[in-house]
C-alpha cells in the first residue's frame, strides 16, 4: 500500500471509531435513532444521549488515546528504548496511585477532586524521577529508566495497599482507576484535559526534528545543533504531562502508549516529524475502538477499557511484528 493509501486507511479507521462511538456505543439508543439525532429528527432524550453522553466520552477516548500514544512515541525516541512508554517512567503509576488513594480515602462529597489528585501525583512522581535520574555528571537515559522502574514499583505497591484495604463500597471505583474507564467523561473533564494534551503535543511537534536526531545518539545530535539536556527535559516533561492528564481522567490504560508508536513505525517508518501526527491519530482511533468494544461486548455490562486495548492490540501487534522485515 502506498503512503497516501496508508494515511487514508488510518483516517478511515478514525472515522469508523467516531461513527461507532456515536451510533453503536451504548445500550439505550440504537444506530438508527443515533443517526436521527444528527438529522434533527430525534427525541430530546436521544439527543441528550448522543451529544451529552456519547460525544464527550468519545472525545475523551480520542484525546487520551492520542496523549498516551504521543507520550510513548516521545519516550521511545528520547530514551532510544523500544520498551519505553508512559508506564515505564512511573508517571502513570504516580497518577494512578494518587487517584486510588484519594478515591479510597476522601469523603464522598470530595470525590470530584480525584482527577486533581491524579495530576498532582503524576507531577510529583515526574519531579522525583527526574531528581533520582540526576547524577554528578547530569542525567542519562539509563538512569532515567532505572529511576522510572523504581518509581513504578513504589507506586504499584501503594495501589496494591489501597486495593487491599479500601472499604468494600470504594473498592470497585478504586479498581476502575487501575483498569481504565471513560464513563466519567464530561465537557468539564474535556476542558481540563485539553491543556494537558495540546501544550505537550505542541512541545513535541516543536522538537520533532530534535527527537529524531537524539535517536542517533547524544553526541551526534549535539554536533547537529541539538542541546540534549534541555531537549530531554522538555520532552520528558511533555510526556509526563500527557500521561498524567490521561490517567487523571481515564485511569490506567495500558498498551496504547507502548504499541501504537511501534505499529506506526512499522507502517510509516522512523521519521519522527511524519510519525507523530500518525501516532496521535492511530492512538486516538485505537482507544476509541477499544472503548466501543468495552461497552458493547457484554452490554450493558462495561468491561475495563485497558483490558480491551491489550486484548485487541496484542494479536494485531504480533501479526505486524511477524510480517515486518
Amino acid at each position, binding site marked *: 500500500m502506498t503512503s497516501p493509501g496508508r494515511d487514508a486507511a488510518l483516517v478511515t479507521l478514525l472515522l469508523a471509531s467516531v461513527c461507532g462511538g456515536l451510533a453503536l456505543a*451504548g445500550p*439505550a439508543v440504537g444506530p438508527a435513532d443515533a443517526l436521527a439525532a444528527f438529522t434533527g429528527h430525534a427525541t430530546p432524550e436521544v439527543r441528550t444521549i448522543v451529544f451529552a453522553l456519547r460525544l464527550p466520552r468519545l472525545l475523551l477516548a480520542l484525546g487520551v488515546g492520542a496523549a498516551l500514544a504521543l507520550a510513548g512515541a516521545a519516550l521511545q525516541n528520547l530514551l532510544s528504548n523500544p520498551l519505553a512508554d508512559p508506564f515505564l517512567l512511573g508517571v502513570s503509576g504516580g497518577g494512578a496511585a494518587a487517584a486510588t488513594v484519594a478515591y479510597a480515602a476522601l469523603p464522598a462529597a470530595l470525590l470530584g477532586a480525584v482527577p486533581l489528585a491524579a495530576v498532582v501525583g503524576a507531577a510529583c512522581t515526574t519531579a522525583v524521577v527526574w531528581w533520582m535520574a540526576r547524577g554528578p555528571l547530569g542525567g542519562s537515559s539509563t538512569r532515567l529508566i532505572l529511576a522510572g522502574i523504581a518509581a513504578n514499583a513504589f507506586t504499584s505497591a501503594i495501589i496494591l495497599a489501597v486495593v487491599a484495604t479500601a472499604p468494600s463500597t470504594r473498592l470497585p*471505583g478504586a479498581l476502575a482507576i487501575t483498569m481504565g474507564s471513560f*464513563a466519567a467523561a*464530561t465537557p468539564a473533564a474535556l476542558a481540563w484535559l485539553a491543556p494537558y494534551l495540546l501544550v505537550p503535543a505542541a512541545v513535541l511537534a516543536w522538537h520533532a526534528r530534535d527527537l529524531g536526531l537524539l535517536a542517533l545518539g547524544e553526541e551526534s545530535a549535539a554536533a547537529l545543533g541539538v542541546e540534549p539536556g534541555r531537549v530531554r527535559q522538555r520532552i520528558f516533561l511533555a510526556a509526563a504531562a500527557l500521561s498524567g492528564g490521561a490517567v487523571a481522567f481515564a485511569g490506567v490504560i495500558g498498551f496504547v502508549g507502548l504499541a501504537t508508536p511501534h505499529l506506526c513505525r512499522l507502517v510509516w517508518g522512523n521519521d519522527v516529524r511524519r510519525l507523530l501526527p500518525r501516532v496521535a491519530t492511530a492512538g486516538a482511533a485505537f482507544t476509541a475502538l477499544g472503548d466501543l468494544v468495552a461497552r458493547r461486548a457484554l452490554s450493558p455490562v462495561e468491561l475495563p477499557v485497558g483490558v480491551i486495548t491489550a486484548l485487541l492490540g496484542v494479536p494485531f501487534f504480533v501479526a505486524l511484528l511477524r510480517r515486518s522485515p
Partner: protein
Amino acid sequence: MAVGRCAIALLVAAQAGTLAGFEPVLDQVGALIAAGPSARIVTLAPDVTELVFALGAGDRVVAVAPHCDFPAAVVSRPRVHPGDPESVLAAAPDLVIASTAGNDPVVVQRLRSAAVRVATLDITSCTRLVEACRLLGALLERVPEADTLATTIAQRCAAAAQRAGRLPPRTALYVVWWEPLIVAAPGTFHDDLLRLAGLVNRAPSGGGRYPRLDPETLLDPALDLVVAPDERESRPLFAKLLTRPAGLRLARGSLPVLWLPADPASRPGPRLPVALEALVAAREANP
C-alpha cells in the same frame, strides 16, 4: 486404668453432646461442620453477627468483624480482621461463622486446617436466609428460637410478596454504587428482593454478581425505576449524578428512586424483611 476412665468419660461426653444437639451439620457451601461446642463464637460478617444475636446466642460471641454495629451489644465486642486468620485464631474460637458475601474462602480453609470449626453461610435469597436460620439453630443449639425466627422471616417475606403481587410489574435496577454504576445481578439477595417486590431486574447475568454498568443504562426507556440503599456515603454521588446527562431521567423524576433503609437492605440478615417491606411500601406509594 486411668486412660480407660478418660476414654469412657470422653465417650459419655460425646454421647451427651450428640443428645444435646451437637451433631455434624452441612453448612450452606456443603462443608461438613463437626460436632462440637459453640461457647466461643467469632462472626466474620455483619449479617452473620445479626443472625447469631437474633437467635439469642450473642452472649457467646467473643469477637466480630470490624463493620458489625448491630445490635447495640455488638459495639463493645473485640474486633478481628476477617482476612487475617491469625487475628481470628487469637480470639480462641470454637466456632467461626463466615459468609460467602464478604469472606475469603482461602481464609476459611486456613482456619479449618488449623482445626477450627467454620460454618459458611451463603444467603442469596429469603429462602436461603430461612435455611441459614435453621442451620445456625442446629449449630448453636437454639433450634426453637431458630424455628421461630425462620418462620417469622418467611411469613413476613410471603406477606410482602403477596402485597407486591397486587401491583403492576415493573423493571428495575438495584444500584449498589452510583459512580461507577454498580448494580446487583441475578443470583444475589438484592435480586431476590426485587423479585419478591414484583420487579424484574434489568441487570444482566454473566458479568458477575455486582457488575459495573454503562451509565447510559439509566436512560434506557425500558427501565421503570431504581432501587438503592439510603447510605450516607452514596448521597453525594447521587446528587452529582443528577447534574450529569446520565442522570437526566433521575433529575426529571421520570426514573424514580426507591430508597431503602441502608443496613437492612445491604445485609442479608434477620432485618431483610424490613428492607422488603420498605420496598413494597415504596412501590405502593409510587405505583
